[in-house]
């Protein structure tokens, strides 16, 4: 069922190279219902069985046939979107019914981590797509209203009916193992040593300068393009090229951390009690994933940057705004 963007990317990246070993050890990763453009240079892109739970629900018949034709003891489906879809009771029941008809036992595995890092990454993705222009600490109250960060709220529908069916892997455990091995191990299939070693590349994420540049750009765009919306046609593609340009400029090479200790403490007031209840319900223990409250904030101030960087940032903002404007026009 996924987890953070990093977790999903790690699983997706390591799966293509693990399929042979998985098959040899009795684990089927079905081709039916799978999406993704697994070219040589981009094996991991979009690797998931999301189409099974999409609106059309296509692919279940073929999946049943593929599973019946296989002698594998275990079937591994990767459906990160289940976490989101599970908010609808009807769709959740429908998916569970399909899964139960596919195998004798179903294990739902997700990876859960502390929310400060998750929100920090979420903030970065919002800044990189020009949805948000304020600093993280100024955006905290809105970010904390998002129930997707509350494990108890997000996952309870999956575990409250049948606790044995749902398994949660804490992020430190996931990070210490092969991504696919960690998921399978949580489901009771221990293959960690049998899977080929894999190096998971870091997803490009904005560093401190990149955040400042894109915060400025987000505000600038709203004047440059009247009625600008981050969901507009052409904007997503432009934001990808913005991220790529930021990478080339070296603005993704440092790790951004937008929390100040004060804001982090305030956020934990929101999450810690429910994390404790979640841990108790799932693991029968206290919450054990440490919160990086004291990690130093690396938020930069645009006007405090060195003058060559200030110059670069302003040029980036103005040229990217032109590009977004052009691509948006072309798309519409």
């Amino acid at each position, binding site marked *: 069922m996924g987890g953070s963007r990093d977790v999903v990317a790690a699983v997706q990246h390591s799966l293509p190279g693990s399929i042979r070993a998985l098959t040899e050890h009795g684990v089927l990763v079905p081709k039916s219902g799978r999406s993704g453009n697994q070219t040589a240079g981009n094996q991991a892109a979009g690797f998931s069985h999301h189409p099974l739970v999409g609106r059309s629900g296509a692919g279940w018949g073929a999946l049943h046939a593929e599973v019946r034709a296989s002698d594998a003891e275990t079937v591994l489906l990767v459906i990160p979107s289940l976490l989101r879809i599970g908010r609808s009771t009807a769709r959740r029941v429908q998916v569970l019914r399909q899964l139960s008809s596919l195998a004798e036992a179903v294990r739902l595995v997700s990876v859960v981590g502390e929310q400060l890092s998750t929100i920090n990454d979420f903030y970065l993705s919002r800044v990189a797509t020009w949805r948000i222009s304020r600093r993280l600490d100024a955006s905290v109250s809105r970010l904390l209203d998002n129930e997707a960060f509350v494990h108890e709220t997000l996952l309870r529908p999956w575990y409250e009916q049948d606790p044995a069916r749902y398994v949660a892997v804490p992020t430190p455990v996931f990070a210490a193992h092969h991504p696919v091995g960690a998921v399978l191990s949580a489901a009771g299939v221990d293959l960690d040593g049998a899977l080929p070693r894999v190096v998971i590349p870091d997803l490009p994420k904005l560093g401190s300068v990149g955040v400042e540049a894109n915060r400025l750009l987000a*505000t600038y765009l709203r004047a440059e393009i009247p009625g600008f919306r981050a969901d507009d046609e052409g904007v997503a593609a432009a934001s990808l090229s913005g991220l790529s340009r930021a990478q080339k400029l070296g603005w993704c090479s440092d790790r951004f951390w937008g929390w100040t200790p004060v804001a982090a403490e305030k956020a934990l007031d929101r999450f810690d009690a429910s994390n404790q209840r979640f841990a108790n319900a799932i693991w029968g223990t206290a919450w054990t994933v440490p919160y990086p409250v004291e990690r130093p904030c690396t938020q930069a101030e645009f*006007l405090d940057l060195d003058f060559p960087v200030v110059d670069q940032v302003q040029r980036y903002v103005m040229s990217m705004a032109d590009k977004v404007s052009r691509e948006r026009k072309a798309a519409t």
Partner: protein
Amino acid sequence: MTRLVLHAGAEYADEGAVHQGLTASRAQLAKAGVLLPPGSSPVEWRDTAQGLMGGSATTPATDWLRAATNAGQPVVLVSSDVLADALSSPEEVTALAAVSGRVGVDVRVVVVVREQVGYLNSLYCKRVLGLDTARSFAEFATEPVPAHRFDYAASFGAVADTDGVDLVAVPYPDLQSCGAAEAVLRAAGIDKTEPDLAGDRAGPAPVPGPVLIGATRLLHKRLRRLGMFHEHGKPRLRTLVDRLAQRAAQRSWDTTAFWGWDAGLRRAVAEEYGASNELFAEFVWGTPWPEPFSTGRPQRTDLADLEPAVLHDVLRFVDGLVEGLSRGSLDLSDQKASGGS
């Protein structure tokens, strides 16, 4: 005996108002027996002030002073910000006392003192708009340069300890209540029979807004990146700041005055200077320090948080100035050039 009054105005402590008030009232002051240095610019007065310091018996400045003394001039008044730094040195003060003895003048040093919180805020704005700094306010206030200038007990201890040199101080609020030049003259004990000085400005200079300050820092950094300081020199580049200020006024970029302090930093600075201020006040007035530290809500600029239209205008206008200058299409002497439009 001629009295030599040295107004040791620390940089911008009086926001330039004393110099303006004095030069605008030169004729009135002459009638009252007060002689000012030749010229009307702070640079010319600075030359005179520097000539009086350093202990040399024959400089154009000491010759000028000697001539005034020989002519029976009652008061010679020199105002310059360089005096404050020079008079912080015991050697310089001793040399001044020696020169005054040789020329035969009575020396009185007048200083305008100001609570440091409001002072540093105003000084920061002045230095940013003068393209003297592009640092953040927090950095500027934490390490003001030169550090001794803001500690009056340290700055003027040497004057207080030297025989033959009197020290008097004017609290900054007095400048606002009776005019800047008038306040200095009164403190110097000059009994002026003329009516109020015509050109003496009352009230502090307006503090610029945070957006103009931010835009000027951006302009400064971009000019530095392009090596424009080396190519054109700071005084000519300041005309770009004038254009920026005009644009800020035309487009109403700012609705508040810049205030760089946050509570923690203000508290630390107030603690740092509070005891020294009390010591100084006790020595010169025999009273507690009269001016409380200023307060305010932070009014700084995070450009990304501006209204989109304002940010857009700031970035476009600054870019227009920088690119216009870089392409050579902007004439720094022509105020009407449209480089930033």
